[in-house]
């Protein structure tokens, strides 16, 4: 596989997002600031605390995200989706996300990799029960970076609910963002008996060439 330097870097960033940068046990979730009711919950809501490097809130951004099976209908191979999978905001923006769950099952809108001194476990998390709409607010840091946004229910990210929040210039696209970037491991969509077909074409190439050579020699 040939990868540009940028892609390699993004890939490792991606791995870090997935496996390393967050370290809080779920059983300790009472350390998060969590507000919730029957309709769902918001974890680490933050209206006022500025990230380091932000002198003030640079602006307000309202994002409305609808989620559910119907947003995957037009995406081959996806089962769950969101109304969009990429969001661009300026550094130090206060972002209010309204997450509308149009399915009859739970869904989540979870950002990873935020600074841990503001957001325990580095995450901002909205969870909405089926048919519910939940809003939450957080302030993005000052550096240009791409943040993974996903639903962490088993297989929901893998089956389409995988997006990216691009702050400022961003730091390079993440892999497998639905409808935006390719999966890092793309499945094979080749016919079953490709070996026979390949052999036939190989033979065709061989006989065509030898026929041409012979024609030329005759001339």
């Amino acid at each position: 596989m040939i990868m540009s330097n940028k892609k390699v870097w993004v890939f490792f960033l991606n791995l870090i997002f997935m496996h390393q940068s967050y370290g809080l046990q779920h059983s300790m979730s009472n350390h998060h600031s969590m507000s919730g009711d029957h309709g769902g919950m918001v974890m680490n809501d933050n209206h006022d605390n500025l990230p380091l490097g932000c002198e003030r809130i640079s602006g307000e951004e309202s994002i409305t995200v609808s989620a559910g099976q119907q947003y995957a209908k037009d995406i081959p191979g996806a089962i769950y989706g969101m109304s969009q999978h990429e969001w661009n905001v300026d550094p130090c923006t206060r972002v209010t996300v309204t997450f509308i769950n149009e399915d009859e099952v739970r869904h989540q809108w979870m950002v990873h990799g935020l600074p841990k001194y503001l957001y325990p476990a580095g995450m901002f998390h909205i969870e909405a029960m089926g048919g519910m709409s939940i809003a939450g607010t957080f302030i993005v840091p000052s550096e240009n970076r791409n943040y993974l946004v996903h639903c962490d229910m088993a297989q929901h990210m893998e089956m389409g609910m995988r997006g990216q929040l691009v702050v400022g210039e961003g730091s390079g696209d993440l892999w497998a963002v639905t409808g935006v970037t390719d999966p890092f491991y793309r499945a094979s969509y080749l016919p079953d008996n490709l070996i026979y077909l390949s052999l036939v074409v190989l033979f065709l190439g061989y006989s065509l060439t030898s026929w041409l050579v012979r024609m030329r020699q005759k001339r």
Partner: protein
Amino acid sequence: MQIKKLKKHYLLLFISLLAMFLVFPSQWYPFDMRLTLTSWFGAENYRALPQSIITPDSQSELACPNDPSGWRASQIIDGVNIDESLPCLADNPYSVAAFVLGTNNVSKETLQRSGLTSDAIVKGRDLDGDGDPDEIHIRLEVVELNGSSPISKRPVTTYDIAPGVQPGIWVFAPKLIGMAVENFETQEARYSLKLPSPSIRIEQGDVVKVTLENTHYMPHTLHLHGADHGFIDSTGEGNDGVPLTSELPILPGQSRTYNLTPRKAGTMFYHCHVQPHVHVQMGLQGLFIIEENRPNNNLQTMNLGAGKVRAPSQSLKESYDSEYDLHYLDLDKELGVRIQENNDPRLITQSMHRDYDITDANVDFFTLNGRSFPYTFRESLIVSHEGEKAKLRVVNGGSKGIAFHTHGHKFTVTERDGVKLPKSNQTPQDVLWMATSQRYDLDLSFVNDGTQTYGPGIWLFHDHQNKGTTTDGIGPGGNISAIVDKGYLDESGWPMTRGVSYAQYFSADYYKKKIPIWESYIPSFYAEPEKDSILLFRILLLMLFFGSFLAILRSMFLQRKKT
């Protein structure tokens, strides 16, 4: 000139033949020739057989992780009495309390510690005025364990049935809030997401709703096997969970509520009925227990991962000291791997439902309460105490039969498929044949009379069909667990066994077939031998000379053709 060249070829041909003859291993000479040679020269000189390879130390997990949260001890949470659970790993007592009171009635702190959503188990009114709630609303989700990912070749939301063994699995799961994994540093599924699907307990006559919220990427249903339920519900909706007869399957992102008010008590079963030959074997099945109606009968509505019931019912406590749910399930690795090979649901569907042929299939993994030995020793021990009596509710959810066998005890079958057997049929036995999906209720008594038990100890219980005691053919593994007297458990809940060390069984390498099986107590004696390097060298030389022999033949052939 030509003839001279040919002569030279003959000479080369002879030399290569001679070389082949010299390096040809003498142990491969024809039998009669070897006999003749032996009569002339006697046996060949002694040459030591290859040495044993020293097995490098492999990483072993801790057999019994400690319990810093104090979950094992008996405790009272929100007024609910929760029995002690002595083996190493115990169920979360806060979940147990929430299952008893209902997630709508439990304190906020308990609910948070249980990890459940507030609508996971909703308990309503006491309809018959006997002191316990009779309106019960249970919610189930569908969770994939050890599935695939578009960015990683390793399984995600992992669940090990044995050290390093991660077959693809589907389960019904309680409705939990938050992430599916334990924390951000790992892909390990959170503690309450496990195989098998939870045992569900309701009371005879309860007005029960079970809502299946299909959080998975394939269609599913819920079929209440053996439990008294209507084919359609009061609103005319299909209620049997069978796509062939009663209703369409529940699509991803959708939900459906099943209704029942069972008139009969007994140990029943629930499972998905969509493409059941695949979906049931993937793990979409659980025990469905209907307890007899009693006053103040507050049931533990779910028992996660089956096993010991930490808050047993009134009806149970009348006749028994403890209760265990035993869920047996076998798994086919060739089926489970199909959710790991691809991340496209269309390809997964094709692979599981068209390419996979169950009539050619065999099973490889044998689980009891979702784990194989040695993990069964962490969480699925039956703890005995002299003079006491336990009730076992056993289901064989696997695709093959099970010869359930207990060491040191003879048990009595009291019910089969949720129906009481006449007293005259209740005789002690120590092997019980269980067909697929069959349930048996067993009395296991710890009265030391030479029949019910032969006394306190560490007594195994397992499927006596030999393959059931292996993990993909490697023993000990499979569904082996033990009935252990309290006096034989150490502080941490680990049985004080007197035989072999368990260290190598807690190493993934053992089940990857990399460790000689008796290495722990007789190191290197039965280890893998080194390769016979001398013989190998001679074979390679033989091939080399044979090659040159062929080349000479060819060049002679070409020479002839020219002349």
